[in-house]
């Protein structure tokens, strides 16, 4: 669907395969919750088919408007990573079509090396043609949620730790302009949720809105941001507490605002998402917020979340134990890159990595240091395939 933020799905001057036509379901075992489908099926179509029958995708990212193939190739994660792992942890089988015509079937227990290369393999091991997914049972489309404000990073880590055992979904929004006020402070909103039993609440209104035009300048700038972040925080604090929410607005808040990226204007924006290992996460996040504060720019979709301890399935999967911070920045050219370089230094010193699904600029050294299984990966590449990203980061 081209929902990756960086250059992983780009191939300027070359051929791009659009996979949306591969959109057929193949089998749904409703007793065991196993769904087999082609790789161009949207996660939304799976949810719409399965939720009324008591099953749901075990892991899904902040948008459901992506394909199964894209979800596997980036081994995407959701708000419940600490509880269930990433998307790839719930794939039982893959069928991979290579450019030379070979077909490779693989899974956790069948050619596991091919499986590990393809999950998170950013499309470089071949075309994923179909997949069998293990879904999870859900009693209803509803979630019991709780949200609460926090004022320091320590509070965030403490809340995360205390919530992980009892709450399946955890995520937090962080006001990245607050970190600079004085060190140790970082206000935000902490949200957690669990599946709720059947409730007869009304289905959400899902009339999609659309950003109608591309403004000449970014509507996200230091002035609007400070105002936005302050009011978002205070609104959130005011509305804190328990509620029952339908899974769609809770999991996929942006999906009902079509073309939301247009608010950044014609120059667009960059997303920067890193993960820092647990030992350094508090200090690292603090240092990053301080850098951002010093740069005078902010991010309005800033998300902070802890990952679980399980080892990722894919050789190039992004998730690893620690905390992940995702930030959006309006594209302002070279001075934004200077900020990114300073953030890179913090990530690299902490032994962290950047998310390939969000990247179009990281230096090759940071990539190589962040993804130690890269050398293993090369052997599984399809020599017939490359992308802007692969040529930038792997040389071919």
């Amino acid at each position, binding site marked *: 669907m081209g929902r990756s933020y960086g250059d992983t799905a780009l191939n300027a001057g070359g051929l791009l395969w659009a996979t949306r036509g591969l959109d057929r*379901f193949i089998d749904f075992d409703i007793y065991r919750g196993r769904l087999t489908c082609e790789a161009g099926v949207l996660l939304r179509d799976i949810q719409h*088919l399965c939720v009324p029958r008591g099953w749901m995708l075990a892991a899904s990212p902040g948008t459901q408007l992506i394909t199964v193939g894209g979800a596997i190739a980036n081994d995407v994660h959701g708000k419940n990573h600490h509880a269930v792992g990433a998307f790839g942890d719930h794939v039982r089988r893959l069928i991979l079509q290579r450019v030379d015509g070979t077909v490779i079937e693989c899974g956790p227990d069948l050619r596991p090396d091919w499986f590990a290369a393809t999950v998170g393999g950013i499309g470089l091991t071949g075309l994923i043609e179909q997949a069998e997914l293990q879904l999870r049972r859900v009693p209803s489309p509803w979630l019991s949620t709780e949200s609460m404000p926090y004022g320091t990073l320590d509070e965030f880590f403490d809340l995360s730790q205390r919530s992980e055992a009892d709450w399946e979904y955890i995520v937090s929004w962080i006001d990245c302009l607050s970190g600079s006020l004085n060190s140790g402070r970082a206000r935000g909103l902490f949200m957690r949720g669990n599946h709720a039993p059947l409730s007869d609440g009304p289905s959400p209104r899902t009339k999609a809105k659309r950003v109608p035009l591309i403004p000449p300048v970014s509507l996200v700038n230091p002035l609007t941001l400070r105002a936005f972040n302050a009011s978002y925080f205070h609104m959130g604090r005011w509305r804190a507490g328990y509620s029952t929410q339908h899974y769609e607005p809770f999991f996929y808040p942006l999906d009902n605002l079509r073309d939301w990226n247009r608010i950044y204007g014609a120059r667009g924006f960059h997303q920067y998402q890193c993960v820092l290992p647990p030992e350094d996460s508090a200090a690292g996040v603090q240092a990053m917020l301080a850098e951002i504060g010093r740069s005078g720019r902010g991010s309005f979709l800033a998300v902070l979340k802890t990952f679980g301890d399980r080892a990722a399935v894919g050789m190039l999967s992004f998730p690893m134990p620690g905390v992940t911070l995702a930030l959006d920045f309006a594209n302002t050219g070279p001075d934004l890159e200077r900020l990114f370089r300073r953030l890179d230094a913090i990530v690299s010193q902490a032994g962290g990595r950047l998310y390939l699904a969000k990247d179009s600029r990281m230096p090759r050294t940071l990539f190589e240091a962040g993804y130690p299984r890269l050398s293993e990966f090369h052997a599984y590449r399809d020599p017939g395939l490359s992308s802007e990203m692969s040529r930038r980061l792997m040389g071919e």
Partner: protein
Amino acid sequence: MKHILIVGATSAMAEQSARLWAARGDVRLVLLGRDAQRLEAIAQDLRVRGQAVKTLTYVLDFESAVAIGALVRTVTQVAPIDIALIAHGHLPDQPACEGDLGLAARELSINGVSPVLFAEAIAGAMQSAGRGALAVIGSVAGDRGRKSNYVYGAAKGLVERYVQGLQHRLATTAVRVTLVKPGPTDTPMTAHLKLGGAKLADVGAVARRIVAATDAGRPVLYTPAKWAIIMTVIRNLPRAIFHRMNI
């Protein structure tokens, strides 16, 4: 259980329409085409999409009047047909048809004669059963002959006249016949136009309107709706102006 017959079931418009019918559950979908393997992949998908969805697939020669008649009899023997959609078609290479009468004949046959023979057979079966909703896909191209594609346009024009006749004949019965006239839509048929940058309608949206119009028994559906206005203008353009247009 509703009994639904789809002729040309591998067409993108037909497949999207079938998904909407399947999602309602409790249906038997009979799919006709010329490639068993592709029909089975679609049938498999439809069975997943709805509860209690049964499918049957048949391969036949779409240009054989005998085969068409026999097939419709076979299908109606199981149960009367509640809904039928006739969707097959092929966009010809107009200049090639001008130089090759054999090709022109085949294009006229698959786009014109074949769908109306299916329509005749199905409408007859529905009339005997005393009920049914039949939709036939024509095209905006059938509204006025144009140099860029009058072989196709003429065949679609035949479909329109034929459907009008059926509507007239069945007006006093409970059988409803709908003529669907899509504008340019994003399907494999128009893939080459898309490469040329043409603006094409979303096939899912077109299918939603086909299904709604068939359910409602609407006599004529232009989809997207703006084509009703555009074609009114085109049909009424004075010849002197029309002939100077390059369309």
